[in-house]
């Protein structure tokens, strides 16, 4: 899906296409094991075995025990279960929570909801490149702090937070750390066996798996309150009949990612360099986030004099994102970029290129040409400001 018949797809941070082997695995499971894995009969046990295999595949990708994973519908649900579930369970100890201004809406809105329920949230600012200095986190932690939630890879800028250092600061103060890993799992090495992380959210469709399935990792001894009730599945943490085919697809996608994550990163880094090289001479162009050291599948650039919605249309047939893709129909400037110190106009004109396995060097060349042409056209159309 790098290039369709009538488009060039550079929006892999929004979603990735299903890997053919994943689709094949899901078809097989639908035809042979599409039963209720909670049923205590031969067919049910066959489905349960499929779920166990998928858990083992995902656990191998993350270096955790399969039993530490809870299946969900995706990262949004995982984030809700982790943040609400942990905050509520520990509310009797304290109601102070910590997160960042640059989190995804799937985290921000959960904390906003908790604020309305009487929790106090500290919203930490990033440095100009988008990183959270560990000293900032350490200063924010209090005796009544119960939970910190930090995104692993930022969906707009590709910033990779230093989870090891941030997690160590949390452990020192015995505060739970939740990490939204939607843009990290299956894309960069994530070793939850070593990282000091208590809760980790992920979703399949960001790493070539199906939409509608995700998981939450809970480290040993970490507990959360369930958000839903209605059955004994998954230790009552997340009741409901499991979507066996989706789970099998997520397991297969994890297995594929585990095999090729290093090669993917090399491929993406090469393409990102090519893209940046082609764009950086455009007058006034700035990179949102770090030029080096970010996740190489994302490059976010902006200009101070171009209207974002017109830029997006002028870029067609390039499929890219302005602001956050999940929120791309909004006219609001990206809160993430505003937190990095960008003006409304700079934030609104930002374009996020996100690259994937099927992206080619020719796609990047075409993207560079389309971007240059679009900027030239819109600048030529613009009138001078009044004196």
């Amino acid at each position, binding site marked *: 899906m790098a290039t369709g018949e009538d488009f060039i797809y550079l929006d892999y941070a929004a979603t990735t296409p299903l890997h053919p082997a994943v689709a094949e695995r899901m078809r097989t499971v639908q035809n042979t094991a599409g039963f209720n894995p909670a049923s205590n009969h031969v067919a049910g046990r066959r489905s349960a075995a499929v779920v166990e295999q998928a858990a083992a595949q995902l656990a191998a990708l993350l270096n955790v025990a399969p039993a530490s994973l809870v299946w969900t519908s995706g990262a949004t649900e995982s984030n809700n279960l982790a943040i609400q579930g942990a905050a509520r369970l520990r509310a009797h100890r304290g109601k102070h929570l910590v997160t960042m201004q640059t989190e995804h809406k799937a985290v921000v809105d959960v904390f906003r909801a908790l604020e309305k329920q009487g929790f106090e949230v500290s919203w930490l600012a990033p440095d100009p490149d988008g990183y959270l200095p560990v000293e900032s986190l350490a200063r924010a932690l209090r005796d009544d702090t119960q939970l910190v939630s930090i995104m692993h890879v930022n969906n707009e800028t590709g910033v990779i937070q230093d989870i090891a250092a941030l997690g160590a600061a949390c452990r020192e103060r015995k505060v739970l750390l939740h990490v939204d890993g939607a843009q990290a799992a299956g894309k960069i090495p994530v070793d939850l066996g070593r990282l000091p992380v208590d809760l980790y959210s992920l979703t399949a469709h960001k790493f070539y798996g199906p939409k509608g399935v995700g998981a939450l990792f809970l480290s040993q001894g970490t507990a959360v309150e369930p958000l839903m009730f209605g059955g004994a599945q998954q230790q009552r943490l997340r009741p409901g009949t499991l979507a066996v085919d989706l789970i099998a697809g997520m397991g297969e996608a994890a297995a594929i990612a585990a095999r090729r994550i290093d090669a993917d990163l090399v491929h993406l880094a090469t393409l990102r360099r090519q893209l940046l090289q082609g764009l950086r001479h455009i007058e006034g162009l700035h990179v949102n986030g770090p030029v080096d050291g970010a996740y190489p599948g994302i490059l976010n650039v902006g200009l101070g004099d171009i*209207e974002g*919605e*017109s830029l997006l249309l002028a870029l067609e047939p390039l499929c890219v994102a302005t602001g956050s893709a999940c929120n791309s129909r909004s006219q609001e400037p990206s809160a993430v970029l505003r937190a990095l110190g960008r003006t409304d106009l700079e934030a609104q004109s930002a374009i996020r290129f996100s690259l994937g396995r099927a992206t080619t060097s020719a796609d990047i060349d075409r993207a560079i040409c389309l971007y240059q042409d679009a900027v030239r056209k819109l600048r030529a*159309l*613009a*009138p001078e*400001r*009044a004196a």
Partner: protein
Amino acid sequence: MNGDPYNAVVRDCFARPGHAGDVSDEDAAVAFFEDQGVRIRLSAAVLRENIKALRFRAWGCPHVIAAAEAFCRHFEGRPAAELATFDTGRLMRDLAVPVEKTGRILVLEDTVRSLRAAIEDRYTSQGQD
């Protein structure tokens, strides 16, 4: 509903803004307006009470750019007096402009009104052949 926020008229006007630029005639009437995060400049040359050339420059969303181009397409070659019939509501319907963008299209209306005044000032007072 196909989810496309732009209809065919908007797409065509945005992709082929044939009236983008400035009227080079030194006697051109010019109007500029900036509001709502939008900037529009219109310039016109009038000959024998007809609009000989009409050009625009615009900074704004695709609907604003398309509206300016659609305006120029419609009125170029027509009597300058017809500018008084410019109907923002009709243009918004033709371009299927979302209601929340009404303010931006009203910037075009303000610019057209200003252009009419500039034409009147430049051509009527000078008297033209």
